[in-house]
C-alpha cells in the first residue's frame, strides 16, 4: 500500500490527440474481452475493444492459436458480433477512461459507414482504423496494402467522423510509406504495428497448424524499429504495439517515439498491473515522467551508419 502510494507520485499521464490518458497503457484491440475487465481496473489509460465490422463475423475454424518461440500465432478471422450489437454492449467497457473503438471494413465505403455510425456516439472518444487486414480481399487485391489505399480509407473516415480523433493502425510491411499517407489524409495518430504474417507447422502430423499473425515478445524488436522509423517522419503521435511484456518494454517504446503503448498478448501470460508497476518503478528510479520519455533516444548514439547486416 505504502509502495503503491509512493508510486502514484510518479506522473504517468500522457496526452493523446487532446485526450488525457491516466497511464500510457492501452489494451491492444482483440486481446481484452469485456468479461476480463475487472482484472485490469486502474491499469489502462484508455479502453480499446476488439475490432468491430459492419455485420457479424463468425471467424475462422479452429485451431486458431499456436505457440511459437517467445510469441504466438493467431488466426481468429475477426470474429465479432457486428457493430450494432457491439454498441449495445459498449457500456461494459466504461471503466472511467476514454473508450477508443477499432473498426474494419472490407471496402472504403464500409469503413466510412462505420465511422458515421460511431460519429454521434458520445461514449466514444476516438476511432482506430484497423488498416492491417491482410485477410480482407478487395477486387482480388489485398486491401489497404499500399499508401494509396491507406490514404483513401483515412480520408473517407476523416470526413465521416469529423468530431473525433482518428488513429490509423498499420502493419509492418511498408509502414513508413503508409504512415506518411495516413498522416497526410488526416489521421490524428498512428498505431504501429499489428501482427506479422506468419505460419506454424505441425511436423508430426505434417500439416499447417495455424496460418495467421505473429504477436508477443518475438516481434518487439521489429515493432520498436517501426515506431522509431515512423515517429522520425511524421508529426502526429505514434502508439506502439507489438511484444510489450514488461515495464521496461513500455519505456523502450516511448523512448523510441511512442506517446502511448498497447499491451496485447502479454496480458494472456501475466497481470498487466505488474507491467504498469514496473513502468512506474522505472520512471521513479530514473526521476522521469511518462510524457517526458517520448522520443528521448532520438539522436542518441548517432552511430547508425545504415542499419542491419544483410
Amino acid at each position, binding site marked *: 500500500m505504502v509502495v503503491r502510494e509512493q508510486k502514484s507520485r510518479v506522473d504517468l499521464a500522457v496526452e493523446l490527440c487532446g485526450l488525457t490518458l491516466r497511464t500510457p497503457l492501452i489494451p491492444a484491440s482483440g486481446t481484452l*474481452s469485456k*468479461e476480463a475487465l475487472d*482484472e485490469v481496473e486502474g491499469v489502462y489509460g484508455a479502453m480499446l475493444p476488439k475490432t468491430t465490422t459492419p455485420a457479424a463475423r463468425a*471467424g475462422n475454424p479452429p485451431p486458431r*492459436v499456436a505457440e511459437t518461440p517467445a510469441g504466438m500465432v493467431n488466426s*481468429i478471422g475477426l*470474429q465479432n458480433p457486428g457493430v450494432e450489437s457491439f454498441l449495445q454492449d459498449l457500456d461494459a467497457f466504461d471503466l472511467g477512461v476514454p473508450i477508443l473503438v477499432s473498426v474494419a471494413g472490407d471496402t472504403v465505403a464500409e469503413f466510412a459507414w462505420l465511422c458515421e455510425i460511431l460519429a454521434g456516439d458520445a461514449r466514444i472518444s476516438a476511432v482506430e482504423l484497423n488498416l492491417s487486414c491482410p485477410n480482407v480481399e478487395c477486387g482480388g487485391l489485398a486491401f489497404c496494402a499500399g499508401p494509396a489505399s491507406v490514404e483513401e480509407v483515412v480520408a473517407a473516415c476523416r470526413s465521416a467522423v469529423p468530431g473525433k480523433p482518428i488513429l490509423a493502425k498499420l502493419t509492418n510491411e511498408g509502414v513508413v510509406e503508409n504512415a506518411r499517407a495516413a498522416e497526410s489524409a488526416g489521421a490524428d495518430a498512428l498505431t504501429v504495428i499489428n501482427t506479422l504474417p506468419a505460419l506454424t507447422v505441425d511436423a508430426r502430423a505434417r500439416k499447417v497448424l495455424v496460418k495467421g499473425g505473429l504477436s508477443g515478445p518475438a516481434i518487439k524488436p521489429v515493432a520498436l524499429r517501426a515506431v522509431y522509423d515512423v515517429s522520425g517522419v511524421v508529426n502526429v503521435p505514434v502508439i506502439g504495439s507489438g511484444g510489450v*511484456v514488461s515495464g521496461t518494454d513500455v519505456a523502450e517504446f516511448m523512448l523510441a517515439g511512442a506517446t502511448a503503448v498497447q499491451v496485447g498478448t502479454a496480458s494472456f501470460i501475466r497481470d498487466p498491473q505488474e507491467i504498469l508497476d514496473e513502468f512506474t518503478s522505472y520512471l521513479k528510479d530514473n526521476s522521469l515522467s511518462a510524457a517526458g520519455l517520448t522520443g528521448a533516444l532520438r539522436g542518441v548514439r548517432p552511430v547508425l551508419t545504415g542499419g542491419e547486416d544483410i
Partner: protein
Amino acid sequence: MKFYKVKVEEREVLGSYTLLRYRWPDRPVEPGQFVMARAAGYPETLDPFLARPFSFYDYDGEMASLLFEVRGRGTALLDLTLTIEVTAPLGKGFHIDPGLGRAALLGGGIGVAPLKILGRRLDTAGVPHDVFLGFADARSAVVAQEFQGAAVATMDGSAGNHGTVLDAAGPLEDYGAIYSCGPNPMLAAVKLAAGENSLCQLSVEERMGCGNGSCNGCVVPVRGGGYIRSCLEGPVFPAEVLAW
C-alpha cells in the same frame, strides 16, 4: 491474466500420468472448471510462452490437484518443477441436477481428469452414477485405480475390456445425465450414443491463448453456425449446443 505462484505440495506418478497437488484455499471450484498453469512465467522465463489449460482433478477446499500427461514442452516442464503458476478457476463446469436420475461418466485418456471431482460432487448431491474409462493401454489405465468401481477399456486390450470407452459402457439411453471428457472425436461419438433423451454434457479440448475469453482462440463450432469460446462459455457444453 493474474497468475498465482504456488508450491507443489505433492507429486504422484500414476502410470503415464502425473498427479500434482497445491494449496488453493477459499475459492470454490466447480467440477469441469480448469486453470491455466505453467512451470514458471515471466520474469523467470518466456519459454514456454503460453500457460496450458488443465481441468481440476480434485479439490477438497484446501488442496487442489491436477492430473496431467506429458505431451510437449509445457507439460514436460510442469513435471519437473517445485513451484508452478496457476490462475483462479476458469470456465463453466458440469451442471449437477439430482432430479435427472442416474448418471454416466465417460472419460477418455487424460480426459478422465475432471471426472474425479465430478464423481465426488455427485456423491455429495446423492446422484447415483456409473463410471466408464477408456485408455490407449494398461500404462495410462493405471489411473483407473482412483475411480472405484469404474469399468475400464483399453484400445490394445492390455487392461480391462478391449475397445473404446463406449464399448465398456454399453447403451447409454437409460441414463438421465451423461458427462464426458476426452478427445473431441470421442465426445462426438458419446453425443451420438447418448441420443436425445438425457442431459449430455461434454468437456471439450481446444488450444487456448488466454483462458479468460479475451483472445477468441479456443472456439468450438455451434449448431446454427458460428463459434463460441470454450474457455468462457465452456469448456463444458450441453451436447446439443455443439455442431459436431
